[in-house]
């Protein structure tokens, strides 16, 4: 265990008083940018970057990565309390987190989210510690066809769940894809679907859509139902924080499954967003209480949060080992690495052992610091739920407006956000599902690009999706997940689940 020795050496670097202090500062700043709308980890990290030029590279990366952890945790806070996801990856957290908080259990929802997020991050770091070199090879094997297959898998595991009227689901999904296509087409460079508005060239940012659909839309639904925050007991519920954490091991299956999904999606470049949606979709299908999902189920919070953080953490690996930043934040950090005089890439593990293992050790410590700090703030955030609706409603409107504006300093975005609010209200009222719409907006563009690039490579033949073992198993897995509800329905129709039914479908999967 060569790695273990290196890791212990890393701990001696990370666990020093100045470094712990840096972690606390970084995490607190991170929570702040994570909670604030329109600001995210990339903003925070870029603003801190100039401060780090005089520091040792290890100290600098510890400060920046701690900020990243803080922002990841902070992003879940607004999703749960106000139904406004700050980052694409915390959208799936709103599905059960917000209903639970609205039912008067904000402390439970937040504590559950943070606890499972910490678990996911921990699994991600352990993965990095032991599988660094192998993981780098897997990521390198990914071409456009594999990218598409991963996105397809995420879609399939989430969309086929049913529940809403099927045609309404199809319309919602298609609208999401169309919105994702607005702006510059990255494959050909041509401008698409701008509806004669030149400013739309930049496309429709996901934050704008989500602020409107979830923030404003939910507000309209709430005001119509004459919603008042349920009287939550006014004392600070410390005990509930620990009780919620203590209940987590009961859901160990969900935790482990979500962590596995998260790590897989983090290493393969699927990313945290696809991971959280996929994990939620799979949990909903396989959980015994799956049909209660969406009403404030504990596993509905655990699954997306664990997968999100597991993916977010393990996604740092390609940045370190290959020099490929997986996200905007990672890109800024990589810029920092170069300014400090380090070259990201495979040689980093050979030349800068202190830096790499100091960083990996700081991931363990930093996540513990982050979860402790964020749990300490739970009662403070939960208290926000007790503010009367008449005051909180205009504040949420302002948060959405400022958030939509600051994405790209555009007034048009604010107007569009308000429009999305009306759409969100109508859809919610008429039982159009919002989740497929958002998922399509977030990863629709990437999925289309990957599909077209693979078509270019194969000159139009679909055979490229079955060209090697990796891509074939991904595609077949996706198709299987899509067909699963159908198979289950058929099985239920025939009363006794006959083996022939499943066998023919599994054959069909291979043929398709």
């Amino acid at each position, binding site marked *: 265990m060569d790695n273990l020795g290196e890791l212990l050496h890393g701990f001696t670097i990370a666990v020093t008083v100045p470094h712990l202090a840096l972690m606390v500062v970084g995490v607190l700043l991170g929570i702040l940018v994570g909670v604030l709308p329109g600001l995210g980890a990339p903003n925070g990290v870029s603003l801190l970057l100039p401060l780090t030029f005089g520091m040792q590279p290890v100290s600098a990366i510890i400060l920046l990565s701690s900020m990243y952890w803080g922002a990841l945790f902070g992003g879940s806070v607004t999703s749960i309390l106000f139904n406004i996801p700050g980052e694409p990856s915390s959208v799936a957290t709103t599905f059960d987190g917000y209903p639970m908080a609205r039912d008067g259990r904000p402390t439970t929802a937040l504590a559950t989210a943070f606890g499972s997020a910490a678990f996911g991050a921990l699994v991600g770091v352990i993965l990095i510690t032991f599988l660094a070199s192998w993981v780098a090879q897997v990521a390198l094997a990914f071409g456009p066809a594999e990218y598409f297959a991963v996105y397809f898998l995420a879609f399939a595991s989430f969309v086929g769940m049913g529940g809403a009227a099927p045609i309404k689901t*199809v319309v919602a999904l298609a609208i999401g894809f*169309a919105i994702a296509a607005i702006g510059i087409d990255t494959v050909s460079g041509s401008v698409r*679907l701008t509806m004669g508005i030149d400013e739309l060239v930049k496309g429709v940012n996901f934050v704008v859509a989500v602020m409107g659909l979830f923030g404003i839309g939910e507000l309209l639904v709430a005001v119509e139902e004459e919603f008042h925050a349920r009287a939550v007991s006014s004392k600070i519920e410390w005990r509930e924080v620990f009780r919620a954490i203590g209940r987590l091991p009961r859901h160990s299956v969900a935790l482990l499954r979500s962590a596995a999904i998260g790590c897989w999606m983090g290493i393969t470049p699927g990313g945290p967003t696809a991971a959280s949606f996929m994990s939620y979709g799979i949990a909903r299908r396989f959980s015994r209480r799956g049909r209660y999902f969406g009403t404030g189920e504990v596993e509905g919070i655990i699954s997306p949060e664990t997968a999100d953080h597991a993916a977010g953490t393990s996604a740092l690996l390609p940045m370190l080992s290959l020099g490929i930043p997986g996200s905007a934040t990672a890109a800024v950090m990589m810029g920092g690495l170069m300014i400090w005089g380090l070259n990201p890439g495979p040689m980093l593990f050979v030349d800068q052992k202190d830096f790499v293992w100091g960083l990996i050790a700081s991931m363990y410590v930093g996540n513990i610091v982050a979860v402790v700090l964020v749990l300490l703030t739970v009662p403070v955030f939960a208290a926000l739920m007790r503010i009367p609706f*008449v005051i909180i409603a*205009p504040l949420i409107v302002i948060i959405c407006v400022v958030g939509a504006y600051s994405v790209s300093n555009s007034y048009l975005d*604010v107007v569009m956000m*308000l429009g999305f609010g009306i759409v969100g209200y109508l859809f919610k009222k008429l039982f159009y599902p919002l989740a497929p719409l958002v998922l399509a907006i977030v990863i629709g563009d990437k999925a289309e690009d990957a599909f077209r690039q693979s078509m270019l490579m194969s000159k139009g033949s679909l055979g490229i999706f079955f060209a090697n073992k990796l891509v074939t198993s991904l595609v077949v897995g996706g198709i299987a997940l899509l067909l699963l509800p159908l198979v289950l329905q058929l099985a239920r129709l025939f009363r006794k689940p006959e083996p022939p039914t499943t066998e023919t479908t599994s054959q069909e999967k291979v043929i398709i």
Partner: protein
Amino acid sequence: MISRRALELATAVLTGSFGVAVVVQSLDNGIGWSSAGVDSGTFPFVIGLVIVLGSLYNLVRGVLPATSLASVPIAITQIELRRLAGLFVPAAIFVAAIPLLGMYLASALYIFAVLAVPRHQSLLRSLAMAAATALALYVVFERMFQVSLPHGALAAAFGF
């Protein structure tokens, strides 16, 4: 009041017209297969068609007196409509006022108006909250994170 049927209809027309716009626009980009691979309009074109067809289906389903819809004839009652307007209209005015007044002044006025006019809060408290909101926005965005929010045409006229 607004019936469920009217609401279904309006939504289907809304999604359908978006679909038509997508189809028409994507024709400009070219659909089909060219030397550069799949043309950039192809995917939106297909998606647009799906939206149009789906909306037509929802439209027909919404208009037909189906059993599932008959149970909820009224979607939004008069009172609910008034509550909706009470939230949305001030918000829309707030957004419309931003180019002129700027984010800070507009949000302060907005907070003050929705709190003081329906007498939810006393005049003094509304005023304090309005000022605190604008100040918090300024400190956090303009100062701490150097994200400039719109100052508005009015401020520009006074030379800010």
